[in-house]
């Protein structure tokens, strides 16, 4: 696209360089540690399925059993496949059951036994990765057959009944009404569960549990809708919280298309331990890269807690960090749904011009990323008429600045979970704006040196300054000291820390090897 903001290319390059400087030590940390959830994801790729009668997944039972015997630092792959050979079993799930009953002891084998265990583990995990590859090829085939949405931005709608069997007809109705991507909101608190629930679920709190079976059911239903509508309808869920790596693996196995996956959200908003988050994040992004999944990052959240004008640069900083971590994990630009939001107080003078400046800045900094454009929530008051107007302006900014994915704003935000009629009115709003002004982007060229250009330059400068401050310490220290948002999150605190282990010298993770393209 043509450059409309006249950004200083030296400053842009400097911003990226600083993001890399801040992120590199974190990547090093992620490369030298593992977590219970990374190891469980490896076992899921190796084919372990199901749960014990109490609903605790076998992958949890197995990882806990290995950790109790030999610790986590060697990785579970070798001890598990060594035990499998010693017990003369072929099915890892069966081994998990025996281990849970206490009849298997795990060891770290040496010599020939170690080589054999590595080979066995790699073979099993490779089969899982091949399944992910087949699902990606299947998506590409279906997109060719049914076609992509005729317009950008893609229209993204949420369903959240708590009951997967209610979600399905709602999702199908939303697709018929024009949604290009359906997101199934998770049950409140799922991000803090250290296991993935099993099976089809019918009761969640303000959302539906993310489970492999729920993924499968919803994807099958949307395949039906895609056929009916002649356009591939994408499915979105969340790779966040304590089970981020497993969610990514399940999404890859069940052909989900987009996953919410932010580098810092869990740390700041859920008090999940920073190291746990960064280790889990790197693995989950490697899986997303392989699976052809588009990630959606969560920068909109900063603006719901902080002022959208004063803190606009924190969004840019987070986008740059998310981009750095994503590239490092192997994601391509087309897979980066970097987030931002229309959250400026409408009573602020020139609020629309400020929104345009911020949105265009993101567009020009990340020209090849399908940016995720989030609707107003903070200043939706219950006045549904004003809310509908605000959503119209949000849609207009989305059209004018070429956003990739537009989450449809509801005029009843903060009033009720959307009614059928709310969704219909919201979609009419989107269709009207895209129909009336979809091409206006071509004519929208901010005046040289004018308000919008100046504001964008100012935000970029503040972002660079913040990144310089972060670089002087380290990202972990910056997070510990509350640089992002107002939350101080030290690296030795937070949930899930007890599930983190430093790699031993013989750490082996066949999934990472395969995803990084290394030979056996």
């Amino acid at each position, binding site marked *: 696209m043509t450059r409309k903001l006249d950004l200083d290319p030296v400053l842009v390059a400097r911003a990226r360089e600083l993001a890399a400087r801040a992120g590199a030590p974190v990547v090093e940390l992620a490369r030298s540690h593992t977590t219970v959830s990374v190891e469980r994801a490896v076992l899921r790729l190796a084919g372990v399925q199901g749960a014990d009668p109490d609903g605790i997944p076998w992958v949890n039972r197995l990882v806990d059993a290995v950790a109790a015997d030999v610790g986590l630092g060697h990785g579970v792959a070798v001890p598990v496949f060594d035990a499998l050979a010693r017990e003369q079993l072929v099915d890892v799930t069966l081994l998990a059951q025996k281990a849970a009953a206490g009849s298997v002891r795990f060891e770290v084998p040496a010599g020939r036994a170690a080589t054999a265990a590595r080979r066995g583990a790699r073979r099993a995990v490779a089969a899982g990765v091949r399944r992910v590859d087949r699902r990606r090829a299947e998506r590409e085939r279906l997109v060719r057959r049914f076609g992509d949405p005729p317009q950008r931005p893609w229209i993204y709608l949420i369903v959240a009944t708590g009951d997967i069997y209610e979600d399905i007809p709602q999702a199908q*109705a939303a697709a*018929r*009404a024009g949604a290009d991507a359906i997101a199934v909101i998770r049950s*409140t*608190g799922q991000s*803090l569960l250290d296991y993935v629930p099993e099976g089809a679920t019918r009761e969640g*709190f*303000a959302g539906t549990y993310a489970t492999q079976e729920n993924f499968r059911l919803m994807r099958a239903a949307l395949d039906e809708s895609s056929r009916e509508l002649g356009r591939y309808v994408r499915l979105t869920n969340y790779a966040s919280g304590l089970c981020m790596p497993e969610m990514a693996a399940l999404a890859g196995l069940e052909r989900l298309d987009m996953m919410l996956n932010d580098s810092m959200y869990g740390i*700041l*908003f*859920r*008090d999940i331990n920073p190291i746990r988050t960064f280790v889990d994040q790197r693995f989950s992004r490697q899986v997303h890269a392989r699976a052809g999944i588009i990630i959606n990052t969560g920068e909109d959240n900063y603006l*719901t*807690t902080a002022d959208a004008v004063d803190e606009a640069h924190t969004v840019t900083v987070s986008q740059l960090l998310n981009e750095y971590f994503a590239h490092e994990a192997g994601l391509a630009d087309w897979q980066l749904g970097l987030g931002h939001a229309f959250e400026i107080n409408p009573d602020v003078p020139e609020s629309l011009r400020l929104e345009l400046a911020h949105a265009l800045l993101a567009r020009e900094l990340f020209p090849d990323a399908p940016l995720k454009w989030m609707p107003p*929530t*903070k200043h939706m008051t219950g006045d549904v008429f004003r809310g509908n107007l605000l959503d119209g302006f949000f849609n207009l900014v989305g059209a004018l600045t070429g956003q990739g994915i537009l989450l449809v704003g509801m005029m009843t*935000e*903060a009033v009720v979970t959307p*009614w*059928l*009629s709310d969704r*219909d*009115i919201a979609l009419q709003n989107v269709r009207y704006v895209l129909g009336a002004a979809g091409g206006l982007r071509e004519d929208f060229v901010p005046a040289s040196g004018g308000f919008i250009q100046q504001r964008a330059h100012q935000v970029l400068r503040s972002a660079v300054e913040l990144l310089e401050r972060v670089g002087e310490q380290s990202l972990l220290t910056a997070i510990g000291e509350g640089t992002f*948002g*107002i*939350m101080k999150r030290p690296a030795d605190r937070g*949930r899930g820390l007890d599930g983190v282990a430093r790699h031993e010298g013989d750490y082996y993770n066949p999934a990472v090897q395969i995803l990084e393209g290394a030979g056996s």
Partner: protein
Amino acid sequence: MTVVPEKQVVRPYGDTTGDGMVQVSFTLPLPHDKRAEGAAIQLAGKMGIDPAMLVHARPMGDGFTFFVVYGRVNHLVDTSAVQVVERDFPLLSAKEVNAVVKRQLRRKLSVVGACIGTDAHTVGIDAILNVKGIAGEKGLEYYRELRVSNLGAQVSVPDLVAAARAERADAVLVSQVVTQRDAHLHNTREMSAAVREAWPAGKRPLLIVGGPRFDEAMTAELGVDRIFARGTTPGEVASYLVHALITSRKAATV
């Protein structure tokens, strides 16, 4: 000076006093046709709108129609018969809560929260404490002037008391979701007894419990200061903390 008497009986106002005009919108699970429009008018009539003008009807999805109706309601409202349940503390914004704590307490207000007993459902305590919050409201961690320590699930009462001591808690928040064999009531009584044992009278932290199955009137019986039921938001809890720990105490000593 003339005193304008307060109107006792009023009707909705469209553009003329007493015209009784209202506007409503609703959806009926009927495909859009003449019958559906007639059904909408019938519903409006039963709502007391007469005459009802159907100004907009739009089919939505399979078998649903959205209607907008304008019309005159025949109901009167008697303002002298209006009953309002007043909250016994003012609802403050996060900014106001922070300002009161900063100005009047002059230190951070310390809050310790947990799910006690075997209850592993942290949904409630996290909704109130996590920055993420609930229903669009940020949790107590978001408040600059509150120092929040969320101990998580399955915390024993002695551990909770120890943490409350270490954090010099001004308030202890306990969430209880599981109600099997009245576990929520037993656990709460155990907690309030332990706190009373551990602190001298008048020095103990404020005790607050919350959960979907509590009866808000049982405070005395459970030995706590406040019970919050289903649907409570972080803003209400923060406002109560400020009221109970700062503003009402100040008022009492002035």
